[in-house]
């Protein structure tokens, strides 16, 4: 299970590619990042993101309902990943692994 903030970023990053329903989001995250997001965790994140206006629900397709990232969600994701990049760069520099060193 991913931590709460990580789950939010993972879901937003998955939806940044395009609208997806719950199962497609979990599959995408598992394939791209190797993280298994539990169904309860996923819907907790979806409900909170919808509350905050960072994603919006689209009309249901049968029993599945796709979700789409909003403009506010894209800005929030951009802010998060830029901060994560700064942290990653700092860590790589301090470990002497920056610049493609193994």
């Amino acid at each position: 299970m991913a931590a709460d903030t990580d789950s939010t970023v993972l879901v937003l990053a998955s939806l940044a590619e395009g609208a997806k329903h719950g199962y497609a989001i979990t599959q995408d995250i598992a394939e791209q990042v190797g993280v298994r997001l539990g169904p309860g965790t996923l819907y907790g994140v979806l409900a909170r993101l919808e509350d905050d206006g960072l994603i919006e629900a689209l009309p249901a397709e049968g029993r599945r309902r796709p979700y789409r990232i909003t403009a506010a969600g894209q800005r929030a994701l951009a802010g998060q990943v830029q901060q994560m990049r700064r942290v990653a760069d700092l860590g790589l520099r301090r470990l002497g692994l920056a610049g493609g060193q193994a």
Partner: protein
Amino acid sequence: MSGGDGPRVRILVALFPPAWRVRYADEFGALLADTGPSGWAMLDVLAAALGAWLRPPARLHDRAGRMRATVGVTLCAWTVLATGAVLFAKVTTDGAAHGSGRGGGWYDVFVGGACVSVLAISVAWLPLVVAIARRARQYGRVAGLLAAPVVLPLAFLVTAAASAAWAPRSAPPGAGVATPVFVLLASLGVVIAAGCGAGPALALTRTRPDGPVRLTAAVAASACATAAMAVASTASVAYQVARADAASAGLTVYGLAMAAALAVAAVSGVRGLRAAYLDRRSASAG
């Protein structure tokens, strides 16, 4: 939810709050059916359901509905507690001087707590009863539900009086009805009490009289009534313990039943107070 979902999926979805289910049950059930609810996924769902109860999504939090539910649940729990208090008073006053001697102070606390509790529950319900009665014509049968706390105790009193006249007496003359008849009457009294609480609670749910100030006041008064009844119940147990050398089985059952009813009222009260607080906060922010 789809009828094709297995029982495990239906149970897992049913763990979430009603408002959450209205919004997400279909798609969440579909996801569970797609992924297959493994042991790990079930734990994940349990944790999420607990989170949804403790911190429901703001958009889905029906605060007025939560407050109505709290006022109704508190009344039902309160009637059980009040029945316990009446039974306690009946058993302890039959053939025994009370209010003096060992534990007499506890008896005074019991009486005081019970009186404050009755006052608080009246403050909580009188404005609601007026609001429900105004809508009675529109909703039919509501008047009958509202009348339950009057009609049912009267029916019980008639039954009790008939039992006193016709039922077999216990061995010493003047000691009242035989024990099985008393237990039967006491059980009937608990059922009647449940009906007294459920009638107005159902009427409140059906008519949905809003008015945030009235509901907030009702939730606060219900919480006070529960707190006062908690004091009274605790004092009644302390009184019995002070007078008896050892706790009897009857006292243990009485104490456990009171504790269970108080726990239900307390949990519902906390949730209602939280909804009232959030309602006031969003009203002042808006």
